[in-house]
C-alpha cells in the first residue's frame, strides 16, 4: 500500500519528470528547426523516419511527403544504400562519402554525406543518421580548377612542344650557320689574297693562311694584338705604315715586302646593319704582274731605243733629199718624200712618247727642277701652234689674268711637253671656232687651261681619258694621228709636280683641260732643302 504522502511525492516526481520531458522535447524540436545542416534518420529498413526542417527545404519535400519513404527516393543512384550497408559502421564511427541526390523538383545536387549508425543495447544496428552537405559550389570550383589545370597543362604542353620546335629550329639554324661559317672560313683559308681582320677595338681577329705566308708570321702569335703591338713585326710594320695606324680606307697601295714579293694593300671598313665591325686589310700579290710589266716596259724601252736610231737616220736622209742636198727632185718626188718625212716624224713622236711612258713606269722619269716663269713657257707654245691654228681657220687667244705670276718650281722640258700636248690636242680636234688659253694665279696655285670648241669627249668615255693608249671614238674618226699617250704622260708629269689635271667636256661643243701647279716660296723651299 502506498501512503497518501508517498503518493503525493510520487505524483510530484512524475510531474517533474514530465516537465523535464516536455523541455527535452521542445529542446529537440527547436534543435531540429535550428540546425542548418540537412539531416535525417532512417530505420534499419532504410525508411526515413525523421528529418529536420533544413532537410525538407533542401530536398523540397514537405514532412508528410518524405517521412515514411525509402531513403532511395532522394538518391540519384540507389546503390549508394548498398554501399552504406557494406560499410563497417560500428557505433560511434562516422563515414563520409560523396554522391548525387535528387530533390522533389528533379534538381540534382552533389552532396557529401556523413553517416552514423545507431545500435541498440545488443549492438544491432537499428538505424542511421545521415547529414547532407551541398558540395555543388565546391565541385564547381574543383571542376573549374581541374579545367584550369587541364588548360594550363595543355598550354604548358603546347609551350613545351613550341619550345622544342624552336630549339629544333634553332639547332637547325645553328648547324646551318656553322656550315655557312665553315664554308666562309674555307673560302677565307683558300683565298689567294691575304686577309687581316681588325675588330672595332683595332685588335687583330683573323689572319688567313695566305696572309701568314705573305708576312711570314703565325696566326697564333698575332691574333688578339693591337695595331701598335703588331708594329714590332717587320713585315707588318710596312703594311701598317702604308695604311696608317687608324686603318683609314686605302685602295690598292703597292708595297714591296721583300725582293720576291710585291703586294697591293687595300683597307675596307666592314659594317653589318650599320654597325661597324672593324676593318679588313686585303693583301693582293702583284709580284708576277710587276715582273711582267717590268719586262714589257724594258722591251718597249729597248725597242724604242733601237728604233730611234734608224728613224733618225731616215729623218735626216729624207731631209737632205727635200732640201735638194742630193740633187734636184721633181714636185711629184717632193710630195712623196714629204709624206714619208711626216710619217717618220709621227713614228719618232710615238717612239718618244713610248720612251716617256716607259720612263714613267720604271720610275726613271727624272725631273730637272728649277724656278720658272710659266707664262713664258706658255707663250712659247702658244706661238708654236698659232700658225697651225690660223691655217685651220681657228681663232686662238691667250689670256693672262694677272700681269705678273710667281715663279713655279718645275721641270721646264716636261711642263712644256704637257702644255704642248694640251694645245696640240685642242688644235687637232677643233675644226672651227676658237681656242682660248688662260693662265691665272689663285689660292697658292697656278691654274692653266686650254678651252676649245672642238668635238668634245663622249661622256661614257671620259673616265678613261688619262689611260694609256686611250683615244675617244670620235677622235679616232676625225683625226687619224695621235698615239693615245699624250694625256697619260701629261697626267704623270703634273702629278709628279704635286699638281692636278682635269677637264670639262661636252660632246660636240668642246673641251677645257686644266692643270694646276702649287706655288712654292723660293726662300722657303730653299731653306727646306737644308
Amino acid at each position, binding site marked *: 500500500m502506498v501512503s497518501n504522502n508517498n503518493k503525493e511525492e510520487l505524483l510530484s516526481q512524475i510531474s517533474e519528470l*514530465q516537465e523535464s*520531458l*516536455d523541455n527535452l*522535447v521542445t529542446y*529537440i*524540436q527547436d534543435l531540429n528547426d535550428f540546425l542548418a545542416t540537412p539531416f535525417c*534518420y532512417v*530505420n*534499419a*529498413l*532504410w*525508411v526515413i*523516419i*525523421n528529418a529536420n526542417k533544413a532537410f525538407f527545404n533542401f530536398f523540397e519535400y*514537405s*514532412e*508528410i511527403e518524405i*517521412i*515514411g519513404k*525509402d531513403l532511395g527516393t532522394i538518391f540519384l543512384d540507389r546503390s549508394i544504400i548498398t554501399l552504406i550497408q557494406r560499410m563497417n559502421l560500428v557505433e560511434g564511427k562516422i563515414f563520409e562519402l560523396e554522391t548525387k541526390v535528387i530533390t522533389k523538383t528533379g534538381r540534382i545536387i552533389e552532396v557529401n554525406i556523413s553517416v552514423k549508425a*545507431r545500435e*541498440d543495447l545488443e549492438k*544491432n*544496428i*537499428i*538505424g542511421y543518421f545521415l547529414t547532407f552537405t551541398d558540395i555543388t559550389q565546391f565541385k564547381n570550383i574543383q571542376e573549374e580548377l581541374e579545367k584550369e589545370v587541364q588548360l594550363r597543362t595543355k598550354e604548358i604542353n603546347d609551350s613545351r612542344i613550341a619550345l622544342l620546335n624552336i630549339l629544333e629550329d634553332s639547332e637547325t639554324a645553328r648547324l646551318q650557320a656553322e656550315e655557312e661559317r665553315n664554308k666562309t672560313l674555307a673560302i677565307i683559308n683558300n683565298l689567294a689574297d691575304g686577309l687581316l681582320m681588325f675588330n672595332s677595338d683595332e685588335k687583330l681577329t683573323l689572319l688567313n693562311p695566305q696572309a701568314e705566308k705573305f708576312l711570314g708570321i703565325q696566326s697564333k702569335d698575332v691574333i688578339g694584338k693591337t695595331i701598335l703591338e703588331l708594329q714590332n713585326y717587320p713585315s707588318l710594320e710596312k703594311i701598317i705604315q702604308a695604311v696608317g695606324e687608324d686603318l683609314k680606307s686605302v685602295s690598292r697601295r703597292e708595297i714591296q715586302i721583300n725582293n720576291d714579293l710585291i703586294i697591293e694593300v687595300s683597307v675596307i671598313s666592314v659594317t653589318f646593319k650599320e654597325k661597324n665591325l672593324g676593318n679588313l686589310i686585303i693583301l693582293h700579290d702583284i709580284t708576277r704582274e710587276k715582273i711582267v710589266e717590268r719586262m714589257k716596259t724594258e722591251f718597249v724601252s729597248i725597242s724604242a731605243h733601237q728604233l730611234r736610231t734608224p728613224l733618225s737616220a731616215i729623218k735626216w736622209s729624207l731631209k737632205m733629199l727635200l732640201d735638194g742636198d742630193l740633187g734636184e727632185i721633181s714636185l711629184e718626188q717632193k710630195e712623196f718624200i714629204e709624206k714619208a718625212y711626216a710619217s717618220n716624224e709621227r713614228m719618232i713622236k710615238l717612239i718618244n712618247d713610248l720612251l716617256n711612258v716607259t720612263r714613267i713606269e720604271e720610275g726613271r722619269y727624272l725631273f730637272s727642277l728649277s724656278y720658272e716663269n710659266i707664262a713664258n713657257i706658255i707663250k712659247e707654245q702658244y706661238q708654236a701652234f698659232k700658225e697651225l691654228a690660223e691655217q685651220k681657220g681657228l681663232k686662238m687667244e691667250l689670256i693672262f689674268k694677272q700681269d705678273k705670276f710667281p715663279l713655279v718650281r718645275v721641270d721646264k722640258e716636261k711642263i712644256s711637253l704637257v702644255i704642248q700636248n694640251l694645245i696640240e690636242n685642242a688644235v687637232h680636234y677643233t675644226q672651227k671656232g676658237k681656242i682660248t688659253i688662260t693662265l691665272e694665279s689663285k689660292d697658292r696655285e697656278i691654274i692653266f687651261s686650254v678651252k676649245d670648241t672642238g668635238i668634245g669627249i663622249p661622256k661614257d668615255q671620259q673616265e678613261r681619258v688619262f689611260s694609256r693608249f686611250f683615244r675617244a671614238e670620235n677622235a679616232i674618226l676625225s683625226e687619224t694621228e695621235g698615239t693615245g699617250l699624250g694625256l697619260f704622260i701629261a697626267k704623270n708629269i703634273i702629278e709628279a709636280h704635286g699638281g692636278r689635271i682635269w677637264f670639262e667636256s661636252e660632246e660636240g661643243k668642246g673641251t677645257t683641260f686644266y692643270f694646276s701647279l702649287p706655288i712654292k716660296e723660293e726662300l722657303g723651299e730653299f731653306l727646306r732643302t737644308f
Partner: protein
Amino acid sequence: MAEENKVEILKKVRQTGGNVKGACTRAIFEYLRMAAEEKKIKEIKEKLKFYGYSLDPEKISPVRMYPLDFELAILFVLQEVLGWQEKEIKELGRNVPKLSFIVKFFIRYLVNLELGYKSSPVYWRSHFDIGQTETPEFNLKDKYLVLILKNFDLHPIYCVFLTGYFETMAKFILNREKVECFEEECTFKGFPYHKFIIKWD
C-alpha cells in the same frame, strides 16, 4: 449526426476515463497547418470550445496524457468545419504517425515487421491507457497480418482514423509503397472487438 448526439458520445467516452498521449493531437494540428487555412483552424478551435474543450491543441505536450474524448471531439469538428468524410479522416490517420514525435521516437527500435507487430501491445500502452491489442496472426507468406483491438469503443470514425494510422506504421517497418489496412470486424458492427487486417504487396 446532430451536435447533441456528439456531445453525448463525447460525454460517454470521457466517462470511460481513457487518455491518450498529446503527440497525436499535436500531429493532427501540424497536418491541419498544411491542409487547411488559418481561419479554418481558428474555426476548429472555436468549435472545440463550443464542445467544452478550451485547451489549445497546438500547445499541449506531446508526452503528457490527455482525455481521449478530446481527440474524438477533434475528429467530429473536422467533419463539421471542413466537411471531411471517412476518406479524409483516413488520410489524416496516415499522416499523423509521420508528424508524431512519439511515433518517430518509438519506431526507431522496430527493426523489422515481425518485431514491430509483436511490439504493438507495448506501443499501444505507451499511447493509450485504455484498450489492448493482440497479435493473433502474422502471415509473411501471404503478406498480411491481423491486429485485434479490445476494450476500445470510441466511435466508428476513430476506427477509420486508426486504419490510416496502422497503414503508415506498417509502412515504417515494411518499407513498402503499397500497404492497405481495413477493419474487418468492429464492435460497432456487433463484433466483440475490432479486427484490423494489414496487407502489403
